[in-house]
């Protein structure tokens, strides 16, 4: 080990090997799952490049090379080029709206020959870096209202562009950054308010008569008003919250019927059991549910083998895992993600500089949104929103995007040791 310490630009001992092993485990597990999902007896070699599993192997190899390269590059590079990446990402996100290829109603892919690339992957990365860079700048304090506005702007600009590409799922991922801001001092009431908003939305859609929600909330407010009748501030806050709630409830209907698109409405209706074509969710749940405790075994998943599950190599890759490896396998994947995310937060908290910490939180939260939405959708807890399961889903853009995201974090984390050493020097 000492050999490297003097010759290499990074401290090997600072590299978080646990995370690297986890990464390797997940991409390999994903690769095998993809093999099962699109298994073709005529091209049964897992290395066959004409098949999705062969190509995924190639992406994994490229990812490893890319990861190594990221670890070699100087840690300062990422901070220095953050704004540049951001500008490039914004440019590409705009360009793709005009010259992108349309797939499934979204214009979010560049197609160059056989090569496909989704700029939103760069946008996620660049936004994470830029947010970290900006907030870690000298003389910038998140307590300033102006700074808050700029941060929101940094997040909302690419989010809006992705929405314009009609890629709602990916746009949703950008909400991860608001979660990051909480760690940096976003007031709790704002976060609580956001969760409350989501809660109201769901409840209002669930009940048949939205007025009933208002009655209940009104009653609750009345009780609280009596309890806190002596504190004027709380009274005002309660009243404000009530008015806010009523406005939200009244506008849910509008939002649902006028803002959401037909297919999005349908998916939400399916989720809440309000009818509609639930084919995808049904098949997905059948696949996972039929796995039982131990699973059907490698290549024995009938739901995926015989194509009953839609998009089984990409967005619904979790079905293959659930069907072939059962509760053991699918719960294992949930564990792995939760552990990885917690690990990243631990990494984040051990950073000495703000840039690394904010970046690390961004990685954790991006993974969190993907994890929640993707797995939630396959087991029927979320509406169908087409975003990939990190490290597992088939696709070069997504795999390489997450690889870059994670290895940059590892580089920054490894660099922390250097920084500490330089302090000691």
């Amino acid at each position, binding site marked *: 080990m000492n050999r490297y310490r003097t010759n290499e630009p990074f401290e090997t001992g600072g590299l978080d090997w646990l995370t690297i092993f986890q990464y390797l485990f997940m991409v390999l597990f994903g690769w095998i799952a993809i093999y099962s999902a699109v298994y073709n007896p005529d091209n049964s070699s897992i290395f066959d490049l004409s098949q999705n599993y062969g190509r995924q192997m190639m992406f994994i190899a490229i990812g490893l090379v890319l990861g190594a390269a990221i670890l070699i590059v100087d840690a300062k590079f990422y901070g220095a080029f953050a704004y540049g990446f951001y500008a490039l990402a914004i440019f590409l996100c705009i360009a793709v709206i005009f010259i992108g290829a349309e797939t499934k109603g979204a214009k979010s892919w560049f197609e160059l020959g056989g090569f496909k690339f989704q700029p939103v992957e760069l946008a996620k990365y660049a936004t994470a870096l830029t947010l970290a860079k900006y907030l870690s700048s000298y003389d910038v304090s998140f307590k300033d209202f102006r700074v808050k506005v700029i941060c929101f702007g940094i997040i909302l600009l690419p989010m809006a562009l992705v929405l314009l590409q009609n890629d709602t799922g990916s746009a949703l991922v950008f909400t991860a950054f608001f979660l990051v801001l909480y760690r940096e001092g976003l007031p709790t009431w704002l976060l609580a308010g956001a969760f409350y908003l989501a809660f109201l939305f769901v409840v209002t859609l669930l009940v048949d008569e939205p007025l009933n929600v208002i009655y209940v909330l009104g009653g609750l407010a009345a009780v609280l008003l009596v309890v806190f009748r002596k504190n004027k501030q709380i009274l005002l806050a309660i009243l404000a919250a009530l008015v806010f709630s009523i406005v939200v409830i009244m506008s849910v209907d509008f939002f649902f019927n006028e803002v959401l698109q037909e297919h999005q409405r349908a998916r939400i209706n399916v989720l809440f059991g309000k009818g509609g074509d639930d084919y995808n969710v049904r098949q997905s749940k059948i696949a996972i549910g039929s796995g039982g405790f131990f699973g059907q075994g490698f290549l024995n998943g009938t739901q995926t083998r015989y194509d009953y599950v839609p998009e089984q190599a990409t967005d619904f890759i979790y079905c293959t895992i659930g069907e072939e490896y059962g509760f053991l396998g699918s719960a294992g994947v949930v564990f792995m993600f939760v552990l990885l995310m917690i690990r990243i937060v631990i990494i984040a908290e051990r950073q000495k500089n703000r840039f690394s910490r904010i970046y690390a939180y961004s990685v*954790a939260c991006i993974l*969190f949104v993907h994890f929640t939405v993707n797995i939630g959708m396959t087991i029927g807890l979320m509406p169908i929103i087409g975003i990939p399961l990190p490290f597992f889903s088939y696709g070069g853009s997504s795999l390489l995007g997450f690889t870059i995201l994670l290895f940059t974090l590892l580089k920054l984390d490894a660099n922390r040791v250097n920084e500490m050493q330089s302090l000691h020097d």
Partner: protein
Amino acid sequence: MGNKGRQYFYYGLFALVGLAFLVQLFSIQVLDDRYKSLSKDNFLKKVIQFPPRGLIYDRYGNLMVYNDATYDLMVVPRQVKNLDTLEFCRLLKITLEDFHAKMEKCMENPYRSSVFEKQISARTYAGFQEHLFEFQGFFMEIRTDRRYKTSSAGHVLGSIGEVNTKIIENSNHYYRQGEYIGISGIERSYEELLRGTKGVKNVIVDVRNRTVGPYFEGAYDTQSVAGQSIYVTLDAALQAYGESLMEGKIGSVVAIEPSTGEILALISTPDYDPNLLIGRERGKNFSTLMMDPLKPMFNRPLSAPYPPGSIFKAISSLIGQQEGVLTPDTRYHCGMGYRVGSHTVKCSHRHPSPLDLRGALMHSCNPYFCYVFRSIVDQRKFSTFEESYNNWHKHLESFGIGVKLGIDLYGESKGILKPADYFNRLYGKGSWKGSNIISMAIGQGELGVTPLQMANVMAIIANRGYYITPHVLKYVDVMGKTGPTFEKHYTTVDGRYFPIVVEGMADVVKSGTARVAQIDSIEVCGKTGTSQNPHGKDHSIFFAFAPKDNPKIAIAVVVENAGYGSQWAAPIASLMIERYLFPEREQRRKYLEDRMLNTNFIDTLKQNEPVPH
């Protein structure tokens, strides 16, 4: 870093979502068993292997019913994509409205295959099959349908039809929606022999309903077993000949081989072509036939009771002898009528008087048999008249009158034979006797005998005292030709009383009322009947068997509202007997045959009264 504590919020959030997922996973993977069977429902398709239905042959091995392939167009609505509806409708020869109506019905089960169009003809199929690949979600299923070699014997052969919910329930779900079952005739009675055993092929299908391969290498598959071919007792040629003679007449013919009880011909006219009740037009044709005022679907020989008329005199002769109240030498005075109070049973025949039994049978003397009837039912040895009546009733039942004979076909009626109670209610207990029911002496009044029962009575007399349950199944083609056995029933009349009646009936044909029934070189025994009915002209009835010794055929012919028995029923019976006994013989009574073939009462009836009964 004042917010360092907030990291725990993230731990909590991640763990909470992870936990929610674990709970949901546990519930659908471990707790809920439904998904396993739902998955099986998806990929496992039980392809029913329909066995070919057994063929039906006549007694000489002539094929009567066989199978033909038809095609059902199936659809899995969910899989229908980019359908060129107009082209589709053009090729299938249906209208756009039809298409939408059918599709809507199939949409009730969007993930499963349902029948879109039934029994597509071979021609439409040929044109459509070439383009089938363009119509994603549609596929063809081969089924077999029945075909009939001839247009005759519709009532005996019966037909098959689609099962309904009730049949499915009753069969313990052996049958499934869309399958066929014998619904009448032999197809119904011998359904279990004919249908064979269904096989099941378990195959794995993918989401496009394409077969991917066998399930567990076919370990759970079962082979279908073809239905058994059966030989029926009918003589197809005799049946067809009889039908042509009965053409244009309403009535029945039943011919039985006395020694075996085998039905040689069973004719009900007006009849229908069994080929009408197959294929796509089946439903339409069926309702047309059901609506027909002449009731071609009504199986007269089994279901229609007629007053037996003069045949009853033969039965009375037998019972009278058995009871010891009549001997061949018993003579009664005719007097042109038998008077009961103000009522007179007239004798319509000119003959010497008084006659003995044989003479009375030959001349069909009404008063003679009124005396005989009263001597039977008014016997002093019984303490009450009712007992005496019951004794007579019991004798009749042994002749198969007033009871079901148990033929292996559905729809058999037991005819009309009133129990004593009926008259007790009508006249009051103890206040009626032979004179009240004297009409029965000459086969009128409260009596109804189906043509099958009439032919059976002929078989009894031909056999001199017994009959075998009449039946249509000759043998089953399995492990050699094994035939079922049918019961032999003796009447309550001793065999020694029969010859005198046989002689009387031989006289009827030799020199009595049915001379028209004479056939070269054999002795025919017969009895005409002219049965009165309130609905119009008398029914022309004739019963016969031949030859007199060692009889081969017993026959009953009824032609409704046609007049005297000797006019229509006797010639038809005679021609059929001759055809049966001498199938190769050239017809020398051409004039008689032509008259039978060319007479059409139905057209006349239609002109006179629109709805005959």
